[in-house]
């Protein structure tokens, strides 16, 4: 086993670790929006790291770039998806927590309505 395969396995192992973190966070976190945080950040990094690991494992020029495209697409689209979900659910008042220390957004929405 060369040094390249070890690096690839380290990347993949990190991806699995972040996947476990995502799962635990999605189940344990108390609030809807904090769950969105777990999904947005950690899941994206997990997907990117796994695709990088596979690209290092394969180690051919064009093929590795093509595999990295998978991670790049996840990196672009997953924060966007979470943004769309958060915006939609806040606007439809699907899961507004009652106790909130700072909330500038509802004032903005109220101004928009008038």
């Amino acid at each position, binding site marked *: 086993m060369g040094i390249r395969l070890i690096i690839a396995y380290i990347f993949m192992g990190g991806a699995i670790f972040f996947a476990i973190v995502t799962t635990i966070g999605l189940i344990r976190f108390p609030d809807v929006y904090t769950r969105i945080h777990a999904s947005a950040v950690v899941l994206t990094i997990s997907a990117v790291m796994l695709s990088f690991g596979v690209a290092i494992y394969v180690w051919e020029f064009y093929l590795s770039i093509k595999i990295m495209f998978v991670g790049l*697409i996840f990196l*672009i*689209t997953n924060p*966007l998806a979470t*943004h*769309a979900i958060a*915006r939609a659910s806040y606007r439809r008042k699907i899961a507004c927590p009652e106790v909130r220390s700072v909330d500038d957004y509802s004032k903005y929405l109220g101004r928009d309505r008038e």
Partner: protein
Amino acid sequence: MSKAKHIFVVIVLSLLGITMVINLNKIPGNTDQINFIYSHITNNAVLETGSLNFVTAILYDYRAYDSLGESTIIFGAVSGIVLLLSRKTLPVSSHGLSFIVKRTFGMLTPFIFLFSLYIISHGHLSPGGGFQGGVILGAISIIFSIVYGSEFDFKRYSPTTKTLLETGGALLFIGLGLAGIIFGGYFLENLRFLNTEIGSLLSAGSIPLINTVIGFKIGAGLAIIFYSMIQKTFKEEDKL
């Protein structure tokens, strides 16, 4: 449905399931006929058709007539849907999602289109082909009408363009078949007009051409289906 009927349905279905499991084990596995066709295709398909992908070789060369029937079925479905939903107007207002989503999709859309062209044109070298690439082409229209609003999609591709692509694709497919009759021996014969080496993009004769035609036809057909489904319905007082 009452509870007795419910229980009756469940009992009948479980009896059916037991019979199916018992009888499915008696299906004959390899007969001589199946083995003959299988060995013929796996031994000769690459040299006969020039396609490295055996599934594409079957779909667009050996049984291209079936693909013609399939695209006829899709043509019928599109015609039926357009006929059923014809007397409706388009929604006028069009506001999509937030500008962040719009801008990012603007940067992503050319690559989706390029990827669909890649899937279509590499149908005989890697998995893919006309159907799969065509569905991705149709998905671009779906993306536009979701992210930017349906009016944007209407301005970019007018329904006339879509209809032209759909009918033109069907006609070109039949035209390729007739070309097989004229220059070769039978309907939809694979004309190996460019005799390049096997494995290059243009090697498989008319298979890439049929792939391209079917891809654009299916993409346009799905876009038409989607487009006529999102049209606005009448209110009740208009109808009754």
